């Protein structure tokens, strides 16, 4: 790691005053230290927000839930309210990375982690997302890359927390010294690579992600998240499914099918959702939704397997959410 100064901040106001001259914010530090050790990021100044106690904690509100950005993935995964009422968020945070990392990594940091493409993460490759013209993945090694909606960059959305929060219609709270607070939905937070290859989200350099707001799920909501990987632990998903079902007795009033490892930005499959809406949840409707989720898939040279994996992930996770199937033992732990 290169040498740097560290501004240790005890309040949000203090941290906001430090967001200038290329300083990079550090919370849990897991993703940032990885990038700095790889040599892809070489900041001369870090703003340490890890010790801002007001940014930690999970609070129930009349509208739903507010989670401080510094709340760790382990704290989210273990929270009794989240486990029972926002189940897919507990599932997603409880299966990210390793138990050790979940004790360190924050929910805000999980949402803001950078692409996990091995070309992007290597200091040896100067790719489209780093301001150059060439993507190496299209003609190179792309077995973990996107199968749809990729435009000029097929690196997949790395945050499993974002998959769950998209399904829950959650928003992030962005705070700046100049403009105060603004609320942006997860749907609008991330930018498609073609919109501007060098920007990943709408947060400005003088803004801090301070909280995550989640509306209270409608009565009769059931949800689940599962990810599939090459390893049982450690790894990012090669396929994942965040499912939310609003049930009227045995009929599905509204369905959300969210995916992360299919595309550069977390997405919902409206085709899969249509296959469930107004119908009972059965093996047949769940299978149909899984198949429908691959509408428009255009796999790359090495990842056609994902077109078979995603429908299975979605089918099994729909049944898990509906209480008709146990957690898949072959899903990543």
């Amino acid at each position: 790691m290169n040498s740097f100064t560290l501004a240790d901040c005890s309040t949000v106001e203090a941290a906001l005053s430090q967001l200038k001259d290329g300083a990079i914010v550090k919370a849990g530090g897991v993703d940032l230290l990885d990038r700095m050790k790889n040599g892809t990021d070489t900041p001369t100044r870090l703003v340490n927000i890890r010790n801002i106690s007001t940014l930690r904690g999970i609070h129930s509100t009349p509208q739903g839930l507010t989670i401080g950005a510094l709340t760790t993935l382990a704290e989210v995964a273990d929270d009794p309210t989240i486990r029972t009422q926002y189940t897919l968020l507990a599932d997603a945070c409880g299966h990210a990375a390793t138990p050790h990392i979940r004790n360190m990594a924050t929910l805000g940091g999980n949402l803001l982690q950078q692409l996990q493409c091995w070309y992007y993460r290597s200091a040896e490759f100067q790719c489209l997302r780093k301001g150059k013209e060439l993507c190496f993945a299209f003609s190179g090694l792309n077995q973990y890359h996107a199968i749809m909606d990729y435009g000029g960059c097929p690196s997949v959305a790395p945050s499993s927390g974002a998959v769950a929060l998209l399904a829950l219609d959650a928003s992030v709270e962005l705070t700046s010294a100049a403009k105060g607070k603004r609320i942006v939905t997860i749907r609008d937070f991330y930018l498609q690579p073609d919109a501007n290859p060098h920007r990943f989200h709408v947060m400005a350099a003088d803004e801090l992600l301070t909280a995550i707001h989640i509306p209270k799920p409608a009565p009769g909501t059931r949800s689940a998240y599962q990810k599939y990987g090459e390893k049982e632990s450690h790894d990012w998903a090669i396929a994942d499914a965040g499912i939310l079902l609003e049930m009227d007795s045995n009929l599905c009033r509204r369905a959300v099918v969210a995916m992360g490892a299919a595309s550069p930005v977390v997405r919902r499959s409206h085709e899969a959702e249509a296959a469930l809406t107004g119908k009972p949840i059965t093996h047949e409707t769940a299978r149909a939704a899984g198949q429908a989720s691959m509408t428009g898939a255009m796999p790359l040279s090495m990842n056609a397997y994902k077109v078979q994996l995603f429908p299975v992930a979605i089918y099994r996770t729909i049944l898990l959410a509906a209480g008709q199937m146990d957690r898949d033992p072959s899903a990543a732990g």
Partner: protein
Amino acid sequence: MSDHQPSQKELPEAPSTAPTPAGISRRGFLKGAGITAAGTALLEGVQGFSREAVASTPKGVKEFGPEPFPVTLHINGKEHALQIEPRTTLADALRIQLNMTGTKVSCDRGVCSSCTVLLDRMPVNSCMTLAIDAVGHHVTTIEGISTDEQMHPLQAAFVRHDAMQCGFCTPGMVMSCVSLLEKNPHPTEADVRYAVSGNLCRCGTYPKVFAATLDAASQLARKA
């Protein structure tokens, strides 16, 4: 703030490997090389940064580095005064500066967890934790769970069950399982699997780790 400096007795070191013809042990040589590299980096740091900005630090902001600065780390029940840079990881502070080489570094990216220590009794990767972030918290390392005379019951169980092959992942495995038994004195095998799901063992000795941990749990339960 105590100014306690650990003596060699309190930080026992494993016997060094065979000395080179020049009488320099492998470990001693590597440590010397590390200090030289750190010294060079420090000089670069001093040249690369201006200190003018420090004068006007606003309220609620404490500025550190890039030069080394003094801190006190609370490790295994003792206070250790040392000099760190902002970029010093907790793993490097322990191993290079405090000579506590029981904590291992393998991947240096938070993937393998051989560097596991407990921060306020919670297992974390010391390679991905800045030492400055450990200030004000309690750090427990593999050196802190036993005494010179007596192994931790979990370590004894690892020996009984031969729960190691090359041994490099073992300190991290033990720390993950110590933390598990503190939180859950009666774990199932699934609980142990979950607790060590961040600990990578290339030798594949997981079944014996599970057996040793379950055995230690039942031994501790009998004592309690």
